[in-house]
């Protein structure tokens, strides 16, 4: 490799070659953890928060910064459900499939949402507008069944109510 240590820009001062400011914020998170390999999951959380999903390039960048083999970073990123390797839609609708929600009819809610959007849970509409997801349990079982619409937890849901939410999301054109 022709690149020597002295040529490597110091993380704090220089912007990322791409000019993307989010890298500077990611760099700050890694610095906070002193680039320790055991902070990998924390760093991946921050990266996903900043970029929306974890692209292969981003994983390589993190591997390089934390001095970890890319296989290790890829292995961790794919092990945990929370990390996504594909871009998400602009809006999200998450149906909780925990036991309490299940007993109170969440399967019918999910089926109605899938039918209406014409996609399966875990995917995004072809126009990239709405992602339909499922959750294991949000711990909001007291108000089951629950659905999270763009980050807001709503309780006591019905299939009809969820279709109204989805319609509302569909009309929110960026």
């Amino acid at each position: 490799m022709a690149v020597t240590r002295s040529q490597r820009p110091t993380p704090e001062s220089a912007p990322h070659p791409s000019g993307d400011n989010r890298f500077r914020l990611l760099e700050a998170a890694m610095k906070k953890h002193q680039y320790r390999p055991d902070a990998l999951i924390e760093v991946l959380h921050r990266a996903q928060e900043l970029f929306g999903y974890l692209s292969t390039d981003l994983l390589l960048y993190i591997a390089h910064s934390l001095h970890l083999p890319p296989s290790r970073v890829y292995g961790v990123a794919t092990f945990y459900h929370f990390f996504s390797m594909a871009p998400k839609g602009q809006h999200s609708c998450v149906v909780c499939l925990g036991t309490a929600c299940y007993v109170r009819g969440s399967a019918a809610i999910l089926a109605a949402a899938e039918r209406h959007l014409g996609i399966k849970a875990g995917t995004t509409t072809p126009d990239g507008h709405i992602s339909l997801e499922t959750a294991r349990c949000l711990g909001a079982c007291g108000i089951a069944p629950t659905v999270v619409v763009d980050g807001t937890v709503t309780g006591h849901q019905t299939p009809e109510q969820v279709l109204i939410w989805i319609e509302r999301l569909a009309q929110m054109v960026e």
Partner: protein
Amino acid sequence: MDLSELIEIAEHERASRRSIRIRCCTALGCQSAGALSLKQRLEEAATEVERQDIEVIGVGCMGLCGNGPLVMVDPDGVLYEHVRAADAPSIVAALDGGEATAPLGDPQHPFFTGQKRIVLEHSGIIDPERIESYIAAGGYQALYHVLHEMTPADVIDVITRSGLRGRGGAGYPTGLKWATVAKSHGNRKFVVCNADEGDPGAFMDRSIIESDPHKVLEGMAIAAYAVGADQGYVYVRAEYPLAIQRLQKAIAQARRLGVLGAQIFDAGFTFRVDIRVGAGAFVCGEETALMASIEGRRGQPRPRPPYPAESGLWGQPTLINNVETYANIAPIIRHGAEWFASIGTETSKGTKVFALTGKIRHTGLIEVPMGATLRQIVEEMGGGVPDGHVKAVQTGGPSGGCIPATLLDTPVDYESVQRVGSIMGSGGMVVMDDATHMVDVAHFYMEFCKDESCGKCIPCRAGTAQMLHMLDVIRAGQATPADLEQLEQLCLMVKETSLCGLGQSAPNPVLSTLKYFRAEYEALLNHNADRATTEP
């Protein structure tokens, strides 16, 4: 920081209280039902009437989550349910003899009066976002007492004599675990709080952290002193953003006051706490997987021994307890081992918090003495199934089992619940009615376990997939009696040979439904088929 300063903060806090307190629940359940805008409206309404004796405070969970948002008015103890922001002015006006537009709740309902609150003693009463509120309730005095008047051995002795057992589900004696970590040698020791509450249908730990985070931190600090640790981690699941946010706030406040950090209470004891956020893997609730995750690796379990008490985080002795276990520590120190041991049953001491959900009238969080019967909890406190009958109660999540209605008189303690084929688990209790098909329930949990299997050991990785397939075949009406027998055998094999608790307990929902609801499986069998169904 010393004791007099602590008492000064407590007195100042108590003196600055106003005579009428309107407590508004701001835990997740009520927030989702609009509690934040309600609280704001209550504050505005209180300001508008220009009364200096009213204050509005945000508190943690009051328990009856299904009827939220909840508002309680002190000192008269008036409870309002399903409160909308528009009801706020009328609630304030009701203090002057007006009539509130929000429905009144009944604080004398068995849901509340049947409880014994130790873990939840401050929940719904103090402001979880202010350390002063916790200190005013006597907080951090147990830690002071421990650091200045007890040796680590004394602390372990008290916890051992109290009979406290792990609240994460397995029920291992807490004192014994602490003693093992204290005896182990290492360059450094760690204390870990397991808040990776992954069982669907359980939200005790979330609620405890959202309602009284300092209590957990105080318990961890006392544990750290007892075992000789100087660093703690709270491993919280990423699905609990509000709990994470309140915990972060609590840690920062505790550091600022010097009840966490270096030289706590000038006693030569240092203890720091960091939060580690999980990333959505159920298996990380298993202690060795949890430690792998804290170290930034894939959350895969490893064989034990060595147990974490001897070789845990980075190979050092590590104490791992559940949120609720830590929340019991300060009360035990405050009131003594004998007091705690006098509550509960012969082998299960103290209380247990349960998340009561599913087809039940009153859903929410309750804390009852160990040994209370399922009937008391489900029918008296929970009010039973609305228009229907209890068919079964599921305890322990995917690791537990379904207890049929005929066994509702089973007392809830570690041994009794295990005897009827389920486990105490962390405290999720899902009530099912006649509309719930038990083969579907078994299928639901098996699908969960198959998805969550980490893939390290074959019995769990291949076994859960195979069991799920067999359940699919049964549900499709294509299975023979021989298939059912084979499913049972496979269940036992996976149970006996899996590496960790996930695999060892994954067959439980199938085995317990087979035990009590076999007729539902048999009704789906095809007695004429002669094909084997072993290939997925």
